[in-house]
């Protein structure tokens, strides 16, 4: 059984954190979260780490492994080099509570401010609606989101420029796109996408897409289509002209 060194960031704030090295044995089939649990058991019982399902579905164990935002429970040890210390850090776009645990509550506050689903009148007398599968194919991709917030963490607008006051981030564009493209929805969120969520801050680096553990094509299927819808409404002079002559359309 090879022994691997894990260099884990510890502390109560990002500013006052320090790396501490731990050695533990790695066996076949282990994931990084297993190693962290083993370290807790063997040498650091006070090491804080959030986890829940251990199956890549709860989105709790988000962290940065060798500098890359990933779910600890879905990162197999045989996919990362072990001949040098494996670095584990908490997400850097959110305040740290302790060790590997961060306070992601900002995301829930932002989500509350997005206009809710507002369906059209029911199609049938029993109060139900009828939809075709072809109409919901697009939004079903967005429903896969597990809210691990790795996309928020890697987005440089939040991570480096700390625009939490102005920018809602990729997770919330996915959420907005799921509502906005829904065939039953009648709400208009495009002005908010531009002025409140400030989608103009996104410069399409596709980092969010690269780190998504659910493989949601965030940039191409959610953010850019929303940018195009904003373009329709605010940056397309020909469409504006049409709207003058066809008001109400």
């Amino acid at each position, binding site marked *: 059984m090879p022994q691997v060194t894990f260099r884990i960031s510890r502390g109560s704030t990002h*500013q006052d954190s320090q790396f501490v090295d731990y050695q533990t044995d790695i066996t076949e089939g282990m994931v990084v979260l297993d190693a962290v649990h083993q370290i807790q058991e063997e040498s650091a019982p006070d090491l804080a780490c959030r986890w829940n399902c251990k199956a890549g579905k709860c989105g709790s164990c988000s962290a*940065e492994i*060798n*500098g*890359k*935002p990933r779910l600890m429970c879905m990162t197999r040890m045989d996919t990362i*080099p072990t001949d*040098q210390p494996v*670095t584990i*850090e908490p997400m*850097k*776009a*959110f*305040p740290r509570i302790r060790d590997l645990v961060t306070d992601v509550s900002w995301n829930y*506050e*932002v989500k509350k*401010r997005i206009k809710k689903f507002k369906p059209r009148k029911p199609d049938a007398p029993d109060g139900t609606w009828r939809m*075709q599968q*072809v*109409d919901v194919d697009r939004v079903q991709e967005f429903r896969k989101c597990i809210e691990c917030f790795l996309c928020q963490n*890697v987005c*440089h*607008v939040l*991570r*480096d*420029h*700390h*625009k*939490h*006051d*102005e920018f809602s981030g990729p997770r919330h564009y996915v959420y907005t796109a799921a509502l906005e*493209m*829904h*065939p039953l*929805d009648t709400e208009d969120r495009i002005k908010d996408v531009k002025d*409140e*969520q*400030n989608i*103009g*801050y*996104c*410069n*399409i*680096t*596709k*980092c969010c897409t*690269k*780190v998504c553990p659910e493989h949601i094509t965030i*940039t*191409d299927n959610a953010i*850019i*289509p929303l*940018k*195009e*819808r*904003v*373009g*329709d409404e605010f*940056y*397309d002079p020909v469409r504006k002209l049409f709207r003058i002559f066809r008001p109400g359309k």
Partner: protein
Amino acid sequence: MSRTNISLPQRSFGETSRIDAWWSQPLIVFLGLLAFVVYSTWAAFQGAHYSFGAYLSPMYSPLFFEAYEHAATGHALFGDWPKWLPAAVIGIPLTPAFLILWAPGGFRFTCYYYRGAYYKAFWGDPSNCGVGEWRKGYRGERWFPLVFQNIHRYFLYFAILFIFVLTYDAFMAMWHAPDGMTYAQAKTDSVLNFGIKVGTLVLIINPILLGGYTFGCHSLRHLIGGFMDKFSGNSGRKKAYDCVSCLNRGHAKWAWASLIWVGFTDLYVRLCSMGVWTDWTIIG
């Protein structure tokens, strides 16, 4: 959005815990784009060797006028360089390439793929995912001048026209002048002969790659159906949306392949015209 109480440390330029060669991809993009910009600018300034027989360089197509004091090539739509157009502006030569290159150049500059690529490679905004930035302030694409990236769809309209023009050029590249005649003469006299040469294939591949790039554009994907919330009852539009989406999934690959091929096509025509390369005949 309301104020939050989040305090995070400012990271320094290049700060990262990544252990992979994160710098290699932006470096390759930087060198690739820089090489193309330098070459295409140089080629645009030449105003010579932009055609060889039936071939016209894509960097000069459509050729509205022959270059200043250039002999007739048979490709110009409106003949010689007109008197009302200056041959140079404040000492910088004006060539036919400058009359058209703004359109494909603008299309690529405002392209969603290229934007992400050159923001990383040229502006370090960020250099790569999870790597600290050198700039402290950030305005994104919300303000002047980058808010103008939103005109991408207008460049798309021009880019689609160019696909038709370059397809016509590829078709015309199959019709060559008989020995002893210039292409311009043979075209005027309608005595062009069918033939497939290496250059013909080079010019045929060019609009195919450019088509793959242009018809996979994110803006086209939106305009052709992405703006709708319902596809049922409109199977034609759904099929068109699926086709564009299919090309869109490989947009970066199409972008690079078409960019490289445009440069190579110009180089091929140029070197044949200069007598450096021989244009081998395959059929005819």
